[in-house]
């Protein structure tokens, strides 16, 4: 059992990161997916996570969304622990109720969109605000219409997902996540399931988000060019650890570690 007293009950100080992974470990049985991960994301920062499959990059996002449980360490969001709660002055694993409250400041977009098929686009966006945040329907509708217009889906707001293309569905999914006004937005390979010609629709929306909003974002992607353009920082993961990280120009332009170089050249060759 880990000694939880080494972890603060709350992050304090002048520069509290929006997200902090502190000694985070995740394993499935004997397979260690994340190995003693330490990562900080500042408020408003856009961090892209890249790496080969099995490197643990998707797990990082999923753990932040609390879709996966943590095996060691603590994750903090906005200064407060996400995966743990306080009990008698010490951190213990959070219960379901605490988790539900804690993760409400985090939003996620999935590779396969996961829109609710029995609701229209606008109903998908309104669902969270009405059912979870308790907003009155009119206000939720207003907010949803605003967001749908931002992602360029106003004319399709009354369509069911089955009538929308992949790119359109993903844009609605982004609007749906934003409707919850999260502090942190997670993008899990949101363009990997799209046809090449519509990838631009989605990356365009994300660019807009980065330019116009001060949202903290974590993104897992294979779109290296896109990552280079919009990220504040890029992390290269390898076998559950951060192999190298830095500003996009330096990581992409002048990778220091050998594995980073190998990965980047393999990706370039595949283009």
């Amino acid at each position: 059992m880990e000694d939880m007293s080494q972890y603060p009950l709350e992050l304090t100080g002048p520069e509290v990161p929006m997200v902090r992974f502190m000694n985070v470990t995740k394993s499935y049985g004997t397979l260690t997916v994340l190995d003693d991960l330490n990562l900080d994301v500042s408020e408003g920062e856009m961090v892209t996570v890249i790496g080969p499959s099995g490197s643990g990059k998707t797990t990082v996002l999923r753990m932040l969304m609390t879709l996966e449980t943590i095996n060691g360490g603590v994750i903090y969001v906005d200064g407060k622990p996400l995966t743990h709660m306080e009990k008698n002055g010490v951190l213990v694993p959070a219960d379901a109720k605490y988790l539900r409250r804690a993760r409400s400041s985090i939003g996620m977009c999935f590779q396969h969109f996961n829109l609710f098929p029995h609701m229209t686009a606008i109903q998908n966006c309104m669902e969270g605000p009405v059912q979870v945040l308790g907003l009155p329907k009119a206000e939720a509708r207003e907010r949803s219409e605003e967001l749908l217009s931002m992602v360029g889906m106003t004319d399709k707001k009354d369509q069911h997902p089955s009538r929308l293309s992949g790119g359109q569905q993903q844009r609605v999914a982004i609007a749906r996540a934003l409707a919850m006004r999260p502090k942190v937005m997670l993008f899990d390979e949101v363009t990997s399931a799209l046809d090449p010609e519509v990838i631009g629709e989605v990356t365009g929306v994300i660019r807009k988000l980065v330019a116009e909003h001060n949202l903290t974002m974590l993104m897992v992607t294979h779109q290296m060019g896109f990552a280079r353009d919009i990220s504040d920082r890029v992390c290269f993961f390898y076998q559950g650890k951060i192999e190298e990280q830095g500003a996009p120009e330096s990581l992409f332009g002048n990778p220091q570690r050998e594995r980073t170089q190998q990965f980047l050249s393999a990706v370039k060759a595949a283009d």
Partner: protein
Amino acid sequence: MQPILQLYEYWNDIHMSYLDFLSEQGPRFIDGTIMTATQFFLSAILAIMCALTAGLMKLSSNRMIKGTALVYTEIFRGTSLLVQLYWIFFVLPLFGLTLDKFYVGFVAVGLNLGAYGSELVRGGIQSVPKGQWEAAYAISMSPAKRMYRIILPQALLNMLPPWGNLMIELLKATALVSLISVTDLMFEAKQINGSTFLSAQAFGTALIIYYIFARLVVTPFMRWLERVMARKIGRA
């Protein structure tokens, strides 16, 4: 010429006597059909309630809840409906619970078919893609809301085709309540057979009525339900 005339007369005789039979016994058939329809609807409602409850319980991670549901379904699926019917009618009174035979009828049928239905519910819910659970989770929905607003609507559509078959089984099962003297269609047919000895007509007519009910009422209704749900889910 003669044989053809004879055949024609014979057909006429049978035809006429069958029509006579129907006009004579018609009212009793109608009474029986109404009782069968009543038993059918009441059993169906009970079966759906039991199926939903037990199906959801079987998906629980709480072992007591899951176990209770499993015991219910295994007992009612593992024994014969007739045995259950007799047990509730004859044995339950010994434990202090006496029900009028009308109630015993649809309660037994409802509990029995609800057990089968719970598997359909469980299967339907499990067939909803995992991504839907995760998306609802990602917007912080409570488990109850998630089940009610996101998962069940989609599960319902997947469940409908096998539920259609189950409804037919339910209709057929109601015929057994005649054996504890509930005056349904089957009971009336037996009575008519006993008084007229016209077995082919008595039982034959009953068979035809059940068939009509199944093919021209229940099945079309279930298909209509499927179409409505498909449209609601935007898949039409």
